[in-house]
């Protein structure tokens, strides 16, 4: 059986043959591979290998070998993806394969005023929510609701599949209570070329991507400037990643469960969730509103007259009727 075993080792995942191929295709200034050889041999072999690589690179080197997996951050962390957040302060969150933030970078002086290091070690969905909370607390987002703020979340994956990350981000933004009706968010995906180009231009990825969507005669617009044009906004809507119905429903269910655990009567929300044609985005906003009992804009009413007698979402029985009447007037 020994010969058969040896033959299989030669045929299947041949350790030595594969090492030889790796050493041929890897950069040739060497680790320990030549360390035990005399200097003249090292030089000779190194020269031959370099010559060989130069001549044969295009023929023999598989294209995949040029793919670099991961990105080394300024703090020497190996990241598999970057999530850019452009509010007015702009940040970059670098994450590992488990979607944990391993490094952060402030891209402007506004961003430097925030304690970004607190985000390291957090799951990216939580970190994004925290960043938005921080920006709100620091006054970078309007908390009065007098104006609509826009946040651009941009992503790039370095050799990894970014679809799961985007899905997580969409869910995080949908469920984040820091994001209400006064804030609109857009998730856009860039590739590694976009990332490199944005670095070269010294621009946050999000700004680079949105400015690439339009002809701006070389003048880079801020997020606020960009979205002030309805035409630009339409393009952004078109280009951004949107949550699917099933993603929205999962967020709605989670919010309803959370409210229910807090003792909130959620029957009105449940009815709306099960109703055909319900505006799910609006339902999410209403659910988020319900978490803040002081917010008079909570709208958990059901438009359908037949449901008007049903139990509406409320924190206390005594306030329910009065609050609801106010809400209808507001509408």
């Amino acid at each position, binding site marked *: *059986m*020994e*010969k*058969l*075993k*040896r*033959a*299989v*080792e*030669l*045929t*299947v*995942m*041949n*350790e030595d043959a*594969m*090492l030889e*191929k*790796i050493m041929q*295709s*890897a*950069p040739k*200034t*060497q*680790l*320990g*591979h030549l*360390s035990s050889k005399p200097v003249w041999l090292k030089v000779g072999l190194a020269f031959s290998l370099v010559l060989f690589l130069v001549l044969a690179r295009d023929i023999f080197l*598989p294209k*995949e*070998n040029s*793919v*670099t*997996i*991961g990105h*080394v951050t300024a703090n*020497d962390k*190996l990241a*598999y993806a970057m999530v850019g957040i452009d509010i007015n302060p702009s940040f970059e969150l670098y994450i590992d*394969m488990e979607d944990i933030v391993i490094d952060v970078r402030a891209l402007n002086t506004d961003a430097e005023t925030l304690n970004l290091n607190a985000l390291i070690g957090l799951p990216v969905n939580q970190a994004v929510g925290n960043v938005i909370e921080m920006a709100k607390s620091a006054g970078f987002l309007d908390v009065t609701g007098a104006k609509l703020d826009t946040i651009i979340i941009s992503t790039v994956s370095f*050799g*990894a*599949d970014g679809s799961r990350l985007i899905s997580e981000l969409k869910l995080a933004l949908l469920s984040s209570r820091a994001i209400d009706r006064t804030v609109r968010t857009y998730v856009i995906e860039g590739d590694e070329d976009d990332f490199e180009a944005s670095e070269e231009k010294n621009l946050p990825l999000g700004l680079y991507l949105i400015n690439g969507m339009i002809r701006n005669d070389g003048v880079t617009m801020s997020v606020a400037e960009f979205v002030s044009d309805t035409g630009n906004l339409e393009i952004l809507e078109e280009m951004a990643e949107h949550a699917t119905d099933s993603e929205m429903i999962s967020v709605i269910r989670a919010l309803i469960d959370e409210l229910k655990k807090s003792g909130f009567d959620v029957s009105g929300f449940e009815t709306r969730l099960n109703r055909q044609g319900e505006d799910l985005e609006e339902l999410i906003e209403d659910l988020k509103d319900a978490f803040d009992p002081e917010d008079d804009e909570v709208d958990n009413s059901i438009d359908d007259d037949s449901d008007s007698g049903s139990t509406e979402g409320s924190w206390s029985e005594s306030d329910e009727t009065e609050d609801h009447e106010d809400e209808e007037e507001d509408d």
Partner: protein
Amino acid sequence: MNRYKEQDFETIYHATFKALSKHVYFKVAQTSDAEDIVQNVYTNFYHYVHKKGKPIDNVQAYLIQMANNELKTYYQNKTNEPITLDDDLDILENIPDESDLAMDIIEKFEIEAIAEAIKKLPLIDQKIMGARFRFELTFREISVQLDIPENTVKTRYYRALGQLKSVLVGTSET
């Protein structure tokens, strides 16, 4: 945290190769694809460790992560071909006894000739031989990894031995 900049890449390679290969081997249909993926992982690792000289906490876990990354790309670019069996081989009969004889005959040939004969086996049988001899798995473990009945694994294995013997004998006679 260790710095591998000064360490021998070959040492890391040999220390981790089997675990990484096994991790990839059963996740792709063809052995050649598994080899390409493992090679890419080590080439990129070499590039990263050597060029950047960056510290890595757990090399094996890092390599597995890189392999998972490569596998994702592989699945994106390629239809994940399930392992298909061309016939129903659930009956073992007296094949084990015959296989002892086949094994004795196979062992009389040169390793290189046996290796060439293995390449002529159906892909699924090559896979089973690899699992059995390269990764030293039991029939039960192979059946779990390949998601096929254990009896089928055994039958295919014994029949593959018979085929190997036939190919080798046939080649030597011509």
